[in-house]
């Protein structure tokens, strides 16, 4: 027995020595490099991701670490700047010689940083690059740690609509999306599916991220009298569009908006006229996956409030990398080790707080988002059937 562990120790030492030499990564710690937008445009979600990563590191370390080594996060601030994020990852990998990297927030930062990681042959699991272009770059090292890419967010809703009897189905739909890869991805994913089934597109509007006057767009949507409105929105733009639509007394049968309706401030922001509004979501604190209970409980203990989607996706990133590390039994910049980590994720399913995840050859996760709806003054899961908390309200009551 003693011989075996001695041998194992020698092997581990040898493995490390063979890696790209390492001052920051002694035998007893695994250093993980991250660059996050802690200031600038994406500061709010960036800080959420940071909390998720920190919660993950704490929970792992409280249990004795990964492969018996303590996990240490090295987090830099990229100021939401795409040039900065590149130099940050260059520094983390090249100079600081971290053992592993986690991804930053948002498509615009994920693409350039994934390229850096690929140049160094490193595994790149990321919590927030869901837009189609992330997966069209030919990355072989990238995995998105969430249930579905942007274009698949509304899949359950599309199935529901297409299963309606022909005379009840919406006949025309108005789409309005922010000029942002993620926001557009969500709306256009649904648009493609509904158009393929012969449902007419009445309005298709794209607006710049800083738009504050939604009157003209709302006027077009209201004039089209579309049965359904879909907003590819973040937060404030979704709120503004809804208020502008209410001002024009437009009453659709289905109203779906990405992201905005799941925000805690949403109801107050639109004057509590929320009944029936839909939104896709990749995470709920109530999900009964075993690791989620632990996550919600310990996260709440650490930060004093329950985790939201950004925090959960960051935590999921940690879980995915940890699963690969445990399976490959290594965590270093060593080419062979990183190749093993990538290979493991390519072929295996990982249990996470957002459910079991597996990926296609481009790194797209293969699950779907749940659909939530405001029912009785509360946002509740209505699709898919097996996870629902309330019945789907159709047609939507007036707002």
């Amino acid at each position, binding site marked *: 027995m003693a011989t075996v562990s001695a041998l194992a120790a020698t092997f581990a030492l040898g493995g490390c020595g063979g890696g790209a030499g390492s001052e920051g990564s002694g035998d007893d710690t695994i250093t993980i490099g991250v660059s996050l937008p802690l200031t*600038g*445009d994406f*500061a*709010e979600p960036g800080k959420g991701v940071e909390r998720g990563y920190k919660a993950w590191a704490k929970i792992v370390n409280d249990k004795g670490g990964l492969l018996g080594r303590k996990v240490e996060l090295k987090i830099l601030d990229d100021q939401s700047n795409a040039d900065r994020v590149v130099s940050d990852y260059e520094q983390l990998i090249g100079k600081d010689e971290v053992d592993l990297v986690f991804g930053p927030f948002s498509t615009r930062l994920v693409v350039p940083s994934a390229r850096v990681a690929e140049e160094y042959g490193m595994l790149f699991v990321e919590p927030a690059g869901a837009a189609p272009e992330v997966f069209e770059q030919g990355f072989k090292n990238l995995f998105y740690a969430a249930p579905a890419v942007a274009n698949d967010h509304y899949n359950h809703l599309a199935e529901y609509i297409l299963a309606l009897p022909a005379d009840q189905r919406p006949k025309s739909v108005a789409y309005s999306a922010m*000029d942002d890869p993620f926001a557009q991805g969500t709306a256009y994913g649904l648009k493609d599916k509904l158009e393929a089934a012969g449902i007419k597109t009445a309005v298709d*509007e*794209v*607006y*710049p991220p*800083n*738009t*504050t*006057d939604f*009157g*003209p*767009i709302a*006027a*077009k949507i*209201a*004039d089209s009298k579309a049965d359904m409105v879909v907003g590819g929105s973040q*937060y*404030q733009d979704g*709120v*503004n569009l809804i*208020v*502008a639509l*209410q*001002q*024009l*007394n437009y009453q659709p049968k289905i109203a779906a908006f990405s992201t905005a309706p799941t925000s805690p401030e949403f109801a*107050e*922001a*639109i*004057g509590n*006229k929320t009944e029936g509004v839909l939104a896709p979501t990749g995470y709920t604190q109530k999900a009964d996956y075993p690791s989620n209970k632990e996550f919600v409980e310990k996260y709440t203990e650490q930060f004093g409030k329950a985790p939201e989607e950004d925090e959960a996706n960051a935590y999921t990133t940690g879980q995915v990398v940890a699963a690969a590390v445990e399976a490959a039994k290594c965590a270093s910049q060593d080419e062979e080790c990183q190749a093993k980590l990538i290979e493991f994720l390519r072929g295996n399913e990982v249990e996470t707080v957002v459910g079991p995840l597996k990926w296609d050859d481009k790194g797209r996760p293969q699950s779907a988002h749940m659909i939530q709806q405001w029912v009785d003054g509360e946002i509740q899961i209505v699709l898919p059937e097996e996870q629902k908390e309330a019945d789907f309200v159709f047609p939507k009551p007036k707002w």
Partner: protein
Amino acid sequence: MPSAGLVFQSVLLGLLLGGLYALLAAGLTLYFGIMRVVMIAHSAFLILAAYLAWWAHRETGVDPLLTLVVTVPLFFLAGVALQRLLLSRLSPVTLTMMSVLLTFAIALVIEGLLGYAFSGTQRRIRLGYSSTSLELFGARIAVVKLIGFALAALSLLGLYLLLKHSRFGQALRATIQHREAARLLGIDTDRVAGYGFGLGLATAAVGGTALSLDSTIYPSLHWHWIGPLMAIIVVGGLGSVPGAAIAAMTLGMMQSLLQIELAATWAQTIFYLALFGTLAFRPQGFFGGRLAQRF
């Protein structure tokens, strides 16, 4: 072809938007008329007023319109102080160019302080009547937009009456037309210029409050406004208040109508097209142009 209903609705929206543009451009053109000052910080003060309205509403729950009681006198005084303490010290030879730099710096300071105090998060006042609207021949007019328009119209009317029918207005117009001559007639042009500047800034207080009723605000929003406003005062003829108001209504309406066929980004280019067109074919602007020509 867009339906008649949509065109009518867009005309209404354009009218409401144009009213706000008119008020804001009036202030901007006034500064130029009085002092040949290009006031880049005008829209930053506009956003500042909107933030003050939002903040007062959040802290105390008062209707944002009530903040006018405080912000209008406050901005008037700030305008007088700005003119007397900073702008009047610039050398007359390079005044126009230096005023761009100076007011640019003021705009950055306001933007930075707003960001520091309230963060970059987008804000919006939540009012009980945010989504209430009136019906007019099948089209809808949002109450908040109507209030904003009424504020702008009243202020413009007040400004017009003040300029046309008061002794101060005469003195101000005389200062605008010919500073030296006005001084020879015994007008204290420095004092008049200070008050004129205060008046311009007071319009920003009214405009900002009107804006805050129905728009999201964030610290860097003023860059979004200054371009169209500058274009408006050039098209209207620098220094001409009625010219600015007419150009504002026309361009606001055109923007709204163009947005029926074009996306939001492209509709906005109408301001710059109008600016290029004016500079190329009628550089003095379309109204009250003598001043700009001389300049």
